[in-house]
């Protein structure tokens, strides 16, 4: 087997180990969720073809290490009936990570596992100039660390203030973690600085009169993040996306932009530092059919 063959195997999720003749097989996991049926199949595969152990990856994935090269296809066949596919590596759209989302977590704003499934169905394993990671946090507590990803998404609540009925008690101003709310010079109006607002909704939850309300509840996109040797936090782009469809369309347009402007083996954040973030925003607004 030559280097080109190993590269192809790696793209298909089978990574040659430092220890000769052995492979670590990456499995296709979305949002860190596996059924018990799948877990049983993985156990069987690791017992039969590996050394009876699995590795939990840094991004909610599972790998079966110590698989001899001549067992790779048998391992794939054993896993297939349970719906566990083999993962991907190389310059592709990688594992989509997600928290438990609003159906499980009381803090959740969006159904992050559902969005992870939708993004995975459309883009997983698709070729891009360099590895591309998507992570989805159900709210701005951000357990998934959206800004570490090439495309990160967070559940977001955007507040709106309604004057009539407000007693100017100052609770919203006091609870805001980023001091995004302030009284106008005369003290009559409340001003919300959208660039500072982090979409947590604390002002709405604690408003005694109900005059601080939800303007939008949805998805907020962050682009160009990475970790590795030179970490960079993704930057917020676009407004609040209102539906799962809009969020998927935005990710599709972001990937198109990366394919059009990214150089081979250049991470998305580095592409964006060349093109500037506004170029991405106008492209996505146009292509993503967003409001």
């Amino acid at each position: 087997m030559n280097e080109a063959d190993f590269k192809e195997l790696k793209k298909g999720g089978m990574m040659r180990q430092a220890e000769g003749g052995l492979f670590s097989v990456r499995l296709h996991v979305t949002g860190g969720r596996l059924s018990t049926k799948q877990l049983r199949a993985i156990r069987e595969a690791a017992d039969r073809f590996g050394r009876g152990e699995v590795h939990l990856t840094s991004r909610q994935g599972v790998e079966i290490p110590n698989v001899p090269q001549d067992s790779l296809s048998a391992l794939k066949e054993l896993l297939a009936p349970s719906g566990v596919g083999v993962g991907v590596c190389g310059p592709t759209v990688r594992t989509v990570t997600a928290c438990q989302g609003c159906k499980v977590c009381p803090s959740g704003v969006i159904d992050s596992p559902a969005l992870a499934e939708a993004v995975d169905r459309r883009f997983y394993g698709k070729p891009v100039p360099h590895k591309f990671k998507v992570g989805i946090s159900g709210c701005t507590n951000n357990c998934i660390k959206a800004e570490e990803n090439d495309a990160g998404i967070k559940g977001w609540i955007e507040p709106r203030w309604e004057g009539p009925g407000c007693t100017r008690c100052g609770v919203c101003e006091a609870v805001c973690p980023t001091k995004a709310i302030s009284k106008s010079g005369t003290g009559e109006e409340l001003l919300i600085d959208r660039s500072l607002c982090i979409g947590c909704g604390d002002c709405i939850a604690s408003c005694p009169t109900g005059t601080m309300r939800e303007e939008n509840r949805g998805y907020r996109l962050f682009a160009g993040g990475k970790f590795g040797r030179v970490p960079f936090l993704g930057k917020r782009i676009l407004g609040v996306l209102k539906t799962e469809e809009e969020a998927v369309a935005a990710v599709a347009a972001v990937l198109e932009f990366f394919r059009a402007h990214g150089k081979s083996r250049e991470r998305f954040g580095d592409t964006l530092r060349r093109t500037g973030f506004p170029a991405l925003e106008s492209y996505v607004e146009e292509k993503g059919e967003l409001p």
Partner: protein
Amino acid sequence: MTTPVLDITGDVCPMTFVKVKMGLQKIAPSGKINVRLKEEALKNVISSLKTEGHRVTNVSREEGTFLLEVEKAG
């Protein structure tokens, strides 16, 4: 009858929540209680009061603390 005052300025979550709940148990439905608290307890205390159907009818500041006028659910 004067409105009872519950001081939770020395407490942290979840004791702030527990003490407010116990304070409300001692008064009749639609009755009033004042709660003195620190800024960091504002969000959790008010949001849990709202969730349980009580009303915060007034908020005032006094020397680094807040005083909430709370009306128990009817």
